[in-house]
């Protein structure tokens, strides 16, 4: 189906961004910011690790919103 084919690249890109966000946020990516035993950095007076979690939450949430407004909506149409 042509519709399905045109959705596939978007689905792959969004899935890749979502997985990347998970690996960078909840996964080993967090070691780049505050590995065990290090002196914890502060960003804007806040613990950098907390802001790191917030940043990747925004990325994950944005991917879900974009998927819902594009891929999933088209699927229903």
């Amino acid at each position, binding site marked *: 189906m042509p519709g399905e084919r045109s959705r596939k690249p978007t689905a792959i890109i969004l899935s890749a961004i979502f997985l990347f966000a998970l*690996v960078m946020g*909840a996964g080993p990516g967090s070691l780049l910011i505050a590995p*065990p035993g*290090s002196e914890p950095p502060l960003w804007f007076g806040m613990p950098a690790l907390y802001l790191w979690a917030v940043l990747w*939450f925004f990325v994950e949430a944005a991917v879900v919103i974009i998927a*819902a407004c594009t891929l999933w*909506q088209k699927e229903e149409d």
Partner: protein
Amino acid sequence: MDIILAATDLGHAPHVVLVCYLLILLGLGIVGYLRGKATEEDYYLAGRGQGLLVTSLTIMATFFSGVALLGFPGMVYQHGVSAMFLALNLPVAGAAVYLLGNGIRKLGKARGYVSPGDMIAGYYGGSMIRIVAAVLGILYVLPYIIIQIKAGGLLAQTLFGEDMYNTGAVALSAVTLVYVLVGGMRSVAWTDVLQGLLLLSGAVLAGIAVIASMGGPGEFFAKVAQLDPKQLTMHDPAESKWNPWWILTFCLFGSLASIVQPAQWMRFYAARSSKILRRSAVIFAVVLPACFLFGIMLVGLGGRALHPPMDPSLPLNAANLPEGLKKADQIAVFMLREELPVMLGGLGIVLVSIIMVAIMAASMSTADSNLHALGGVITRDIYDQKNPNASQKERAWVGRIVIIVTTLLALLIVYLGENSEFGEGLLKTIGQFFFAAMAFSCQLVPVAVDMLYIRRGTRAGAIAGMITGGAVVLVTLFLTGTNTIDTIKRVIDMGGLALAFNVLVFILVSLFTRKPDPEHIAAFKRDLS
């Protein structure tokens, strides 16, 4: 989830708030009954017609138990910012609400499914697979019900006094039982709307209150920045499970486990349309983590800054915690009862009472959803198989009897747990199963993905995979003390580990066993489109 008896006198405010809350719940239960029909589909799935508000809030309220408002701040108090990364599992679960839930909804509507076992047995065929799926579901549902009833007793102790444990547990069970029995899914979901709103507002309110009481965001983060460095960095896998590897596997698999558990599965059947599940998925993925990251989780961080343990290197037991705080997961209640009345006077007392009732609401919404789902699973997957000619009314009544018996049994266990040595041991074992509950339900993920997307698995493969996964959970649950097992458990979430074995066995056995009839698969695919 022991809860403290703080010194602050809250007067009659908690009584008034709690009585109002319970009366509203009973009212919603009665309205649900009056609007319902005496059919099995209506009792279990509210006629498959639930709209956006009900669907989104009942999914969120079912997802989180009392642990959400007590356990999360407790984890952050104990392990620091690393525990806050658990919130990143929520967008994964949100996406799964649509990606798994919508297919489940479509098949349920097209084929009249009520329980998860209906769909799994409908696709793979045979009754054995239905029983295996039901057992995995029950292993998730039962410990949740018992622990939530226990939480009701502990909350009553907090609000009304030390001797109110049994009364609290009975009151929570009795009110829940009434509205589940009379109104089925309609009442459960409507009460979940109220409970979900309380949970979300309680989470946000608690965060705002603690930040304000510490002098605003600037002062709050200035105090947090002075915490022990270990609280502000990731942990080493050699020392603790709060390391990126365990957190990543939990975010991937824990979230999916909670989305395919029986009560959620039945909520997908009950949603009216794809559009409603799509919007519910977005609300789940955005609102819920925001309430945690910017609300209740910050309470744990502020608590650690204001009330640190005497010696951070020692276990956080009552002797090592500040006076009045017996366990880390009491920190939210401890902070709120100390700070809010001082800061806001009478309004603070009302707010504390609302947050306490929100904790109870979180427990009740999980207990009611799981009780209701248990009734459905046992009726459809066990009773109906022995009595295929039973009438719709009879089936709905069997579900109700299951719900009554389970509630009484759970109450008995909770009572014995507080009053006898045998009961204490039993409750402790159930507590262990509670922590493994998600790992059990996680074993339904491969069959759900196969039915909805891949369609290459076989019945034998699915059964072998689920049994292997369940067995791995049991082995890892009870095998501790050896270096290898403990190291593995610190690096991989138990559900994820069992899922890996499940998938491997599922694929291997499916390669060598008979696949479902291609026409049968094509018909399933058509119903999904």
